[in-house]
Each structure stands twice: as C-alpha cells, then as structure tokens.
C-alpha cells in the first residue's frame, strides 16, 4: 500500500508528531521560499514584491494590520490564488505555482482557515477520518476500511483536542472554540511538513489558548509552523521569529522585542490604531 500506511503501521505514542514522509527536499536550506511575489485584484495590489523564507522546523509568527496580505499569502502557498509574478518553492524541488490545492496538500502543506471551516454535516470523528493522511484517490477512498490503527490515531487526536466525548456528534453543533480545535486536529491528522495556521485562537478561552500555544510549540522542530495571529499576547507567548507584513510586503522581521521596538512597525500600528 501507500507509503503513508506503512508508516502508520509502526505503533507509537503521539504518532502524529512524526514528520510525514513527504518527498520534499530540504537538504539545502529552507522548506518554504517565496520570491518577488506580486498579486493584484483588479488594480489593488494585495501582495507587493513579497519575499519570505521559512526554514525547516521553524515556528514563524506573521503579524500585520488588516489587509496586509496575510491571508492572500496563504492562498498563494496553498495554490488557491495564482500570483501575477514571482516564484514559490516548497523545499528545493517543488514549484508550488505548478500545482493545485489537493497536490500541495498531499505534498505536506496543511492549512487552517481564519474562519474555522469543518464539515458540519459529518461527526467530529468523521471529520478527522477524512483529514487522515491516507491514499486519497477515488477508488482507494471508496474501498477504504477503518483499521484499528486508524481508529487509534483518530482517538489520540480526539483526546488531544479534547473532543473525545463529542466524537459522534455532528460538527455543526460545536462551539466556535471547539471548531477551532477540531480544525487543528484535522491539520494534525494530515501530518503535514508545513502547517499554515490562520488565527488559531480566535474565540478561545485563556486555557484553550495556552494549550494551543503548547501544541504549536511542541510541533515546531519536527514540522514547520507558520502562524498568522492578531492576538499579540499569544504571539509573544509562542514567537521565536516574527515577520511583520504591511501592504503586501515584509515590513520588519526578527524577535518579538526587535519588531515591537521597530519604529516603522510602531508607526504602522499606531497609524492603524489611530
């Protein structure tokens, strides 16, 4: 069977933490590499000569005022939007601009949306099941059976995201926070090499936030994580390196302290705030 199943046959605790065996080649340098990317929606420049490099295993936070182009950037990486110019590389082998969303996803880039989107008509369990990294072509999907291993992995994640009790309830009835968690769970089931997380803690309680922070930090190292977040507190709690986007291009980059003292950044944020 497919390489994924093989891996899953090995029985482990926190098995989802092992990096997916994606063919991505990171021997020389970064896992994600954006160069001179430009996108404009009828006239309005959403992304403007954006250059960004994410190293393998890095946890990167991206902040920036509304309309800075954060979400658009994610759209580009995941193949939803095609840039006008520029190049986007996943590792040194895969040119993402030549691929469509499913291929990119199978390649090992997972994404969590700003507005939590889960399959409301399906149960929590089924949501995770669908996300699970398996052969996702038609016939294998049709004939797919739920093995014990699969079940265990789903159970693990269920407990991790604290939805074990609700596993057979339809996702539609979950609270906003729970949906956030479920989506993160789905992300984990995909076992991606690179996680793009868009505002993970919106609508979460303090404790939930902390748990999210733990989770994300624990993921970093094995997987690369890019977090877009408005909540500065949260960012500070997890951030090692922070990138500030403004008007579609990088305004500043560095540790939280560096950027938060950067006059340009302050100016922008005050400008925004005022």
């Amino acid at each position: 069977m497919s390489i994924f199943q093989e891996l899953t046959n090995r029985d482990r605790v926190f098995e989802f933490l092992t990096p997916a065996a994606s063919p991505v080649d990171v021997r020389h340098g970064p896992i994600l590499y954006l160069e001179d990317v430009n996108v404009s929606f009828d006239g309005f420049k959403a992304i403007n000569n954006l250059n960004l490099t994410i190293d393998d295993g890095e946890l990167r936070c991206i902040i920036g005022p509304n309309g800075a182009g954060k979400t658009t950037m994610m759209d580009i990486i995941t193949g939803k939007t095609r840039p006008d110019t520029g190049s986007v590389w996943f590792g040194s082998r895969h040119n993402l601009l030549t691929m469509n969303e499913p291929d990119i996803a199978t390649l090992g880039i997972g994404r969590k949306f700003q507005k939590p989107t889960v399959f409301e008509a399906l149960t929590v369990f089924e949501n995770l099941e669908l996300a699970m990294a398996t052969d996702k072509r038609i016939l294998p999907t049709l004939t797919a059976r739920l093995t014990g291993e699969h079940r265990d992995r789903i159970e693990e994640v269920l407990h991790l995201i604290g939805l074990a009790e609700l596993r057979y309830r339809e996702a539609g009835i979950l609270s906003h926070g729970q949906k956030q968690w479920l989506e993160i769970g789905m992300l984990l089931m995909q076992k991606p090499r690179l996680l793009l997380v868009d505002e993970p803690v919106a609508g979460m309680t303090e404790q939930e936030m902390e748990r999210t922070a733990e989770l994300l930090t624990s993921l970093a190292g094995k997987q690369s994580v890019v977090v877009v977040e408005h909540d500065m507190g949260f960012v500070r709690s997890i951030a090692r390196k922070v990138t500030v986007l403004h008007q579609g291009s990088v305004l500043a980059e560095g540790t939280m302290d560096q950027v938060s003292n950067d006059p340009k950044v302050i100016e922008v944020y005050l400008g925004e705030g005022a």
Partner: protein
Amino acid sequence: MVASTLNTSKPWLLRPFNERSTQLFLGILFGAVALVTLLHLVFPEGHALHVSAYTVTLLGKYLCYALLAVAVDLVWGFLGILSLGHGAFFALGGYAMGMYLMRQIGDRGVYGDPVLPDFMVFLNWQELPWFWHGFDMAWFAFAMVLLAPGLLALVFGFLAFRSRVTGVYLSIITQALTFALMLAFFRNEMGFGGNNGLTDFKDILGFDLRSDATRLGLFIATGIALAIGYVICRGIVLSKLGRVSVACRDAEARTRFIGYRVDRVQLFVFVVSAMLAGVAGALYVPQVGIINPSEFSPLFSIEVVVWVALGGRATLYGAVIGALLVNYAKTVFTGVMPDAWLFALGGLFVLVTVLLPKGIAGLLQRRKKAEDSDNVAGQEVTA
C-alpha cells in the same frame, strides 16, 4: 451518517446490509414485489385479489422512476449537484434498449424489411446508419445502456467539474444539455425516429413483450434493479467516499485543502448516477412500449428533482417515496379529475416544499436520529 462508523471494517458494498433503514427498504421492496407477483399468479382474472397485468406494468414503470430518482438523489443529496438534465441519461439508456428492441422486430415490421426499422423504410433510408450496428446483439445493447449515459456524463462532467462550474450554473448547463439532446433527437436526420421515437416492439430476449409473463418478469427485474441500485448508492454513501462527497457538498475548498481531488470525486459519483439513470431508462422502455425525445424534455428532469425533494433529499429512500407517490397521484388524478389534476399536482409541490422542507422523509428524521444515538451508545460499548 453516524451509523456509518459502525461497520467501516466491512467491504463498502456489504455495509448497507448492516444498516437498519436499508434492511427495512429491501425487505419491504422484495415483500411488495413478491406480493404483487403472487396475487398476479395465484388468483385468476376477475378474482377480487387478482393484480392485473395493467397494474403490474404500472408498478414496474413506477419502480423505474424510483430508480431514476435514487440516481438523482445520489448527486443532489450527497454531492450537492442539482442536475436538471438527468432525464438525458434516462432517455439515452432508454434509446439504447429501444434500438435493441427495434432490431429484434426483424422482418415483422409493417414493411417486412429484415434490417431497417419501419420509420427508416418509409423515409426511404437506404442502409442502416453506423450507430445502429451491434444493437441486434443483446450484450452489446445492454452494455450501451450503461456506456452511452456513462460516457456522456464522463465527458460533460469532466469539462464542467474541471473548470469548477457549480451551483445554478451547473444546473442550467445540465438543462442546456438535455434540451440540446431533445432537439437533436427530434431531428429525423438523426436516425432515431424523430418525434415518433421507437415503438411497436415485439419481444425481448425471445420473450413476447405482450405476454403477461414477460410483463411480470420485467416488473421483477425492475424491482431487483432498484434494489441493487439502492444498495450501490447506499454503499457509496456509507463509504469514506460518500463522506468525502458530503464534504465536497458542504465545504468544497476545505476538501481540497485536505488533499482530495474534488473534481474527480464529483465526476465519479456523477457517472455512477448517470449509469443508474440509464438502467432505469432501459427497463422503462419495454414496459411503456415507446421511447421518444419527450423524455429528454427539461421539464421532465425538473419533475424528477421535484419527486426527490418531495420524498426528502439526501436519504435515497426518500427519493423512492417521492417518485412512487407523485406518479401514483398522477395516475389517479388524470383518471379521476382530468380537468383539474394539474391543480392538485402543482398544489402538492408547493405545499410540500413550503411545509415540509425536508420532504416526507423529513417526518421520519427525528425518529431516525433517536435510533442512531442508541446505536452509537451501543457501539461505544463494543468499541
């Protein structure tokens, strides 16, 4: 949905059999078919309990419609694709069968031409058009019953889904498709008998279409076809692919981002559904004795959708209820109140859509939910 987690260790096609609603459906379907057969055979003509050949054929026709409705529900209910052109697949299947039956007439046509069907003789065609060859062989014709609609669905679906045509736009071009086909088949140059279509069939597989026995046979065959079709659809729905379909229906983008080729999923299910519709058409033709372009009419396709909505979308058995109910109503009304039956039918559509948004099956939903949660409870213990 929930019940699907119970038996996902079984092969997909066997799963429906563990499901209560399917068991019930099959039980009642076979029960009814057997009952009708019995009443038809056991009791003599004129006996109060005798089921006449007329009724048998009528019920057979209903079952064909039911199968068509199931096919539509598969794509609409679970994939979110509202096809206003499923009549096209139904009719194509019908024509494939019709062509076979025409060839079976042989030289018993009014002109006694051994090869050419009557309508070709009197519009003096010289020889058989190429696409009519092979239909004298049953296996070929029956293969075509599946392939013709399947192929059309494949090509059409491939184009449409690849370029992500969705929603109303998809519905309208499916309508355009069936409308175009209707006009095409009306043209006598096409060689499908134009408006008169294909008719005056004599026998099928050597059995005389006029004998009650053949009628009964066709009726039973239709019953079995419906059962198989239902199980296949149910199997798909309960399989992981079925859940992916629902995912496509509710959040297409999200499904892509977790790595599924939405367009392929849609294409696969669409083609399967089209083939089922084809089979329904093929069984329909020998029982009503005629196939003509009016089956391609967009209004017919819309009506099928109405059956499904009426019975209850995304339940499959709802589609069956809807089809049977509406058509039975039609038969009764057109006889009892010829001048006013359209009021009744139209009123029925309006009332059900407004008052029963989930259709008739919706009435059963709450009850069903309860059952399911019991199952879940029981299942959690065993897990």
